[in-house]
């Protein structure tokens, strides 16, 4: 029977191997969340517009992204970006671009639902007050849509954080990679993978508990 020994996970090892990976995973999550929500909102507005030349490309983009496995999307971008720009791009940078563009598709579906949850009368009221389309969206619809959808957006962000581990496919140095390298160097793979699972669980579980709390509070405001 195997003896588990976590003693090698000293503060030095943690700062040396794991902190670097954790920071990248968090960075990637935050960049993809912000970029994805901004781009996703634009896509959602395109899909809800009345002009078919805006609806079709947005719908095609969202549906394509949503039907390809994330690992394949990561591989696609890692292959295509250097071909298009003519320069090799690091795995980390490539991951940032990929996740932003990929998550935009998922965030756009959430924002679309959020925008549709606002009664049409409010848009009509905005126009009646002489507001332009941009003003109506910015001042009336989007703030409410965003607030209504905040729990869902955050839940998607937790999934996004879990998905960042898939940068494994292109060898970027993320949280899992940090644990894996530490495990190899100290010949303790079993312990490091267990520790990695524990860290991911703690982060995701506590975040989802926070989202639940937030959801209850938002429900009260409404």
């Amino acid at each position, binding site marked *: 029977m195997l003896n588990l020994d976590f003693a090698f996970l000293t503060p030095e090892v943690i700062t040396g191997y794991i902190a670097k990976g954790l920071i990248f995973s968090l960075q990637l999550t935050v960049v993809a969340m912000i970029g994805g929500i901004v781009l996703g909102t634009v896509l959602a507005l395109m899909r809800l517009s009345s002009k078919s030349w805006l609806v079709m490309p947005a719908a095609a983009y969202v549906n394509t992204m949503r039907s390809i496995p994330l690992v*394949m999307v990561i*591989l696609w971008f890692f292959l295509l970006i250097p*071909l298009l720009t003519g320069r090799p791009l690091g795995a980390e940078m490539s991951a940032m671009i990929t996740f932003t563009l990929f998550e935009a598709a998922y965030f756009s579906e959430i924002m679309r639902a959020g925008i549709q949850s606002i009664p049409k009368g409010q848009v009509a009221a905005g126009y009646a007050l002489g507001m332009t389309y941009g003003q109506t969206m910015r001042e009336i619809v989007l703030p409410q849509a965003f607030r209504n959808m905040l729990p869902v957006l955050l839940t998607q962000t937790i999934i996004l954080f*879990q998905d960042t581990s898939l940068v*494994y*496919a292109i060898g970027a140095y993320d949280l*899992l990679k940090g644990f894996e390298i530490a495990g190899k160097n100290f010949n303790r793979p079993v312990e490091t*993978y267990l520790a990695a*699972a524990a860290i991911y*669980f703690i982060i995701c579980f506590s975040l989802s508990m926070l989202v639940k709390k937030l959801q209850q509070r938002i429900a009260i405001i409404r």
Partner: protein
Amino acid sequence: MRNRSKGKLGTWDWQVFCKDTIEGEVMPRCFGSGGNTTYLDWMLSAWGWTISVALLSLVVALVFGSLMGILRTTPNRGLVLLGNAWTELFRNIPLLVQIVLWYHVLPALVPPLQGLPSFLLVVLALGLFTSARISEQVRAGIQSLAHGQRMAGLALGFTLPQTYRYVLLPMAFRIIIPPLTSESMNIVKNSSVAFAVSIAELTLFAMQAQEETSRGIEIYLAVTGLYFITAFAINRVLHFIEGRVRVPGLIAAGDK
């Protein structure tokens, strides 16, 4: 051998699939013969692995997901707690980490698992990961039924299991077919993560064939297309089932 500019956009070379995987020669009929394999042979076998992983995981996920989802709606607090703990555990660890745990860690901790082929370990990992999500849907489906249905069943003298079997589950499962459909398509997509433990499925094929041939775009396009086809086929099958089991007048037709 044609030496087209390697890796540039705009030049296609679909003949890459007819090449022998060892010699690199283009085979006349695209399929290898006499023990040789072409990239096309390899890709089709990888597709088979993807489909096998996905379908078997789906079975595991449906069995455990339904069981846990049902437990979470029983009046027994211990069972509810078990179902909740199961769901939170498998939902809050990334799939890749779970697959790595099943492959590298559990056989070291639980010796009987050492004899299992890695294919089965991945099926268990993907199946249990998805079971957490299916348990959410089953629970939501059961809870969406009017509470009176459960009470009516019990009042008629059904035991609790009978109430589930004859009253609650037949309706609950019909209600959750649409989310189960998208979960089944997710399982096809998620099976790609099995590349990490060297299951010879489509994504691993894509990575290795891309490296060997440098015809990444053609290979990725073909693989992406196969994922599309697989997910679409599953969607159609479940849509068909949804239509066949529909109770007239009770649930709005889900025509897409």
